[in-house]
Structure formats: C-alpha cells, structure tokens
C-alpha cells in the first residue's frame, strides 16, 4: 500500500470514529434513548431533553474542531500537507 492509500485509510478511520460519536449523541441520546436518559437530570434539564436541545450541538462543534486538528496532524505525518 502506498503512502496516499495509507493516508486515506487513516482519514476514513478518523471520519468513521467521529461520525459514530455524531450519531450517538444526536440519534442515540437525543432520540432513541431519550426517555431512558430523561430519568437523569442536569440541573433543571432532563438529560435526554438536554442532549436533544443543547448537548448534541455543543458536541457537534467540538467534533469538527477535533477532526480538523487530527487531519492537520495526519497531513503532516503522511507528508501531504499544502505548501
């Protein structure tokens, strides 16, 4: 496998990891398990409701910056970054 293919594979692994988190916080915590999570509380918020209306959005933001940061590292590691 050449360098570009290895870089691509690392990229795909990173994207899948990030999208698993993306799916878990929104579709998982915010929709599928919302009733179970609502048994717990975060201040005045029921936890599932908080994920649906606040938490998932914060985590989305963090995820994109994490992805951008890791990709910049991968660009350097595989020596494919822009001049």
């Amino acid at each position, binding site marked *: 496998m050449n360098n570009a293919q290895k*870089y691509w594979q690392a990229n795909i692994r990173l994207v899948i990891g990030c999208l698993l988190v993306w799916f878990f916080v929104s579709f998982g915590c915010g929709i599928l398990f919302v009733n179970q999570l609502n048994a717990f509380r975060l201040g005045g918020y029921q936890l599932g409701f908080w994920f649906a209306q606040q938490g998932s*959005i914060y985590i989305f933001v963090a995820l994109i910056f994490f992805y951008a940061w890791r990709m910049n590292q991968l660009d350097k590691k595989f020596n494919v970054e822009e001049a």
Partner: protein
Amino acid sequence: MSNLMITTYLVVGATFALYLYIALKSRAKNTGEFYVAGKGIHPVLNGMATGADWMSAASFISMAGMLAMGGYDASAYLMGWTGGYCLLAMLLAPYLRKYGKFTVPEFIGDRFYSQTARLVAIICLIVASLTYVIGQMKGIGVAFSRFLELPFEVGLVIGMAIVFVYAVLGGMKGVTYTQIAQYVVLIFAYTVPAVFISIQLTGNPLPQLGLGATLSGSEGVYLLDKLDKMVVELGFTAYTSQKGSTLDIFLLTMSLMIGTAGLPHVITRFFTVPKVKDARSSAGWALVFIAILYTTAPAVGAMARLNLMNTVQTGEIGAPEGNLAMDARPQWMHNWEKTGLLGFEDKNGDGKIQYYSDNGLSAAEAGLAKALKEGGDVTAAQAKVDEAAAKHAESKFAGFGWKGNEMTKVDNDIMVLANPEIARLPNWVIALVAAGGIAAALSTAAGLLLAISSSISHDLLKSMLAKNIDDKTELLYGRIAMGGAILLAGYLGLNPPGFAAQVVALAFGLAASSIFPAIMMGIFVKRMNSAGAICGMLAGLGSTLLYIFWFKGFMFIASTAMAPDNAANWLFGISPGSFGAVGALINFAVAFAVSSFTKAPPEHIQHLVEDIRVPRGAGAAQDH
C-alpha cells in the same frame, strides 16, 4: 409617528447604509471574485458569513416558535440544522475545496464525466434555491410591513433593491463581507432580548443556562418543571416529552442533516477559503456562530411559551378569576390581532380568555366552518364536532364552564417578534429585532441568488451553450442572471404560489436525495461511474418528489393529492418532510447497483479522485 417607529427606521436605516457601504468597498473585478471571492476569505470570517448565509428568516423568526409550540419534538430542527455541518466538514468541504472550481454542478459534471449529470445537478440546484428564495422574500416583506408599517409590496421592493445593489456589484466578495456585518446584526438582535428575558425569569444572564435554572422567587422550582406542570394541567402533552413517532423524528432529523450538507449555497461557501485545511476549520467556525443562535432558541421558545401561558392564565386553573379578561388584553395582543396571526373568541361568553387543549374540539369546529363555507362534507364534519364535544364534556375543563380553547389562532412566527413586547423590553430592543429579522432574510437571499446566477452563467452558458465567451462577458452574464433571478424571486414573493410554506420540505428533500449522495460518492467511491450516479440521482429525486406530491398534490395543487396527508396514510408513518433521508438511501442503493454492472470510470477520472483526496497541490483560484 410613534417613538418606536422612529427608532426602528433609524436602526434599520443604519444597517442598510452599512451594507451598501461594504458593497461599494468590495466590488468584484473578475469571475473568480464574483463566484468565490478570489478564495481569499479567512476561515473565521468565512464561518461567520456562512452562519448568516445559512440562518434564514426561518431560523430567526420561525424556529423558536416551533419550539414553543412543539416542545421536545421540535428538537429535530435543532439537531438537523446543526448536525449537517459535521457531514459537510468531514465528507464534502475539504475535498471540494481541493478540487478548486466554482460551482457544485461543475464538480458533479467533471467527476462523472457527463453533461447529463451536470444538467441534473443544475436543475436540482435551481429548484432548491429558488423555492428557498421565495420564503426569504416573503419574510422581508412581512418584517417591513409589521415594523415600518409600509405596505408589504413596498417593503419587498426596497429589500430587492438593496440585495440587487450589493449582490450584483459585489458578487461573492461583496456578499461575503456584507454577510459578516449581517451576522453581527442578527446575532445581536436575537440574543439581547433572550438575555433580558432570561434575567427576568431566572436571574441568569445566559439563556442556555437560564433554561435549566430555577425561576426567580420560586423557592427552587425549575423553569422547565414549572412549564411541564402548567401545560399538562391545561390538557397539553408535557413540554419536554415526545409526541410524534420516534421513527418520524429520527428520519426528519436525518433528512434535515443530509439536506443541510447538500444545499448548494452552503457548499459554495467552502470554495472561498484559501486552503483545504481552512475548509475543515471554517465549517467548525460556521457551526460555532450558528450554535450561538441555535442553543439560545430553545430558551427563547420555552420562555415565550411560559410568558404566554402566564399572561393568559393569571390565576388558579378553573377559578372564575383565574383567566385574563378579554378587555384587559395587553397592547401587543392587539397589535398582532391586526395582522391576523393571533386571534381570540370568547366561546363561553364569560368575558375571559381560556387557553388550553380541548382535545381537537376547536379543530373540529374549524373544519365544520370550512365545510359550510367551501361546500365540503358537512355531515362528516358535524359528526366530528359532536364526537369532540362529547369527549370535551367529560373533561375537567367542562366542569369549569369552559367551552373550548379561546385562543383560536396563534401563529408560530409571532413568538420571536412579539417576545420583546411580551416581556416589555425597551423600544430599541424591538427595533433591533426588526433589523435582525431583515438581516437574516437578506443574507440568505443573497447567498441563494448567487448560487442560482453562478450556475446559470457558469454552468449553463459558459460550459454548455456559449463556450467561447471571455471572462468579462461571463461576468456580465453573471450579473444579468443575478438581476433576472432577483426579479423572478421578487415576483414570486409578491405572488406567492399557494405552496410557499410547503416547499421547504421540497428544497431539503431535493438537496438530501440528489446532491449530497452524488457528491459524497464522487469523493469516497472511486468505482462510481456516470451511469450509476445519474440513475442514483434520478431515483432519489424521483422517489422523493413522488412521495411529497402523493400527499401534497402534484406541483402542490392540493386537489391532485393521491391520499390525505396524515399519519394513517404515510408509508410506515413517515411524513413527506422526512422522506429526504429515504430518498438519499434509494439514491445510494440504485447508484451502487447500476455501477456494479456497468463499466468502471476512465483512468483520468480515477486519478482525479485520488488527487482530490490529498490536500497537497490545492491551487489558488483556478478556472477550468
């Protein structure tokens, strides 16, 4: 002229002067600056412009109202319209920036080496963008007519003239800088009243925390608990609990996410940054700026609902003196009744207003009135009223002498606009909200018009019809196309086709079922060929259109609907607005099936795909 009007004129006029000044300062000189701002916009500023581009009149005006009335179920819009940015950042933006051209159809046409694919993409883009623009134009007209008390038509024409000047002159460069200013105006206008109201109710200045805090002077009762208790006592479902089916909420969220990532005017924004790595972080910055509004909206919605209920239900539920007297309605109610977006009817003649859930009695009565007026099935409508009335007679509300919900009309859209008035905030805050609503509508309209004009002048004219035109002529055509698009959008705004409100589902459905899958497979599936991509797009598009039209009527002519638009008829309970995700799935499936038994794409296309996957070698603005 009242004080409020003078303040509003001053604030709105000042923002307009600012937009025009920016437009004159940043005129586009070549096609690169016109289409993609010369690819020289800093990622943070680009993120801010993307935020203004994305947050339309719907985000600014409608979303908090949907939350106020829908409670938990409206979370689909919050997660859907933000989660799409993750898909954009990880699956599309950096690769499209590396590819380094001007438009979305250009990428699809080149990657699938097919003018047919490009044409399908152009059609999807124009239909999705145009339907979206109509809504913005209408929003501008409404904001003007409510706040400046100008006729709807005059307001719309002023709005068109402003967009015309800065979008036609400045192109993407002018639009980008104007959008940055518009973002500042709109976010300020949204958060300032929210902060005031949050302090009033909870003492906490951050609305995001205020929503989870205890009410002031309540000895530790949480705001959301109080709201839940109140709506349940009045017969509604609890604010924080789920009403719709899980499958439908799931698919609606998914459709909105995929649709967001596939909307061309948003994608184009990532062509304007200097580098591939900037495209990644710029999506993050865009979401930061969007999240400021989107995490405030739930607080605005819940607090507006609580304020509204407290205004009407002044005392104990069921007590004779527990409700607001008809004659004692505050000024803001009178103002909004004039617009027809708010309405009351004293059904039991006690001179007071009761706002509660009468389990469909009011809806059944409205149905009967409609049947009598327009000549529907009166017997069936009467039977429904009788059934609902019998049910209502057994409820505790009948025991109070209540005869049905008396707040007969409360439009979601008034929540944000009336909010400062409900909370009795100073005039300058109300003026600011007007300027913010107009900024949100203008910035989105400009972005969409730019996407439309570039696909006409660049994709249709330059690449298909008149291949030999030079840069200067193309720029001229771009400006003419933009002017034409503004006139058409203005015309449709003045004479909205009856379906203006429903087409949002269509715009997202198209973007989700056709554009997003095509681009994604173009990047991630090297083996995907033109036959697969075209069949996939057509299948996704066709199935989504068919499903929407089946329930809404062909071309939205209601009488041609094949089945009534309700949950009993929907396939697996999937509403037409949520079908985009299924359409996208069909697109993927068909594309893979067709490409597996047709020829692999030619060598140079496979090289192209390998090339866009690595950042190195991304040039500055390049043309063809």
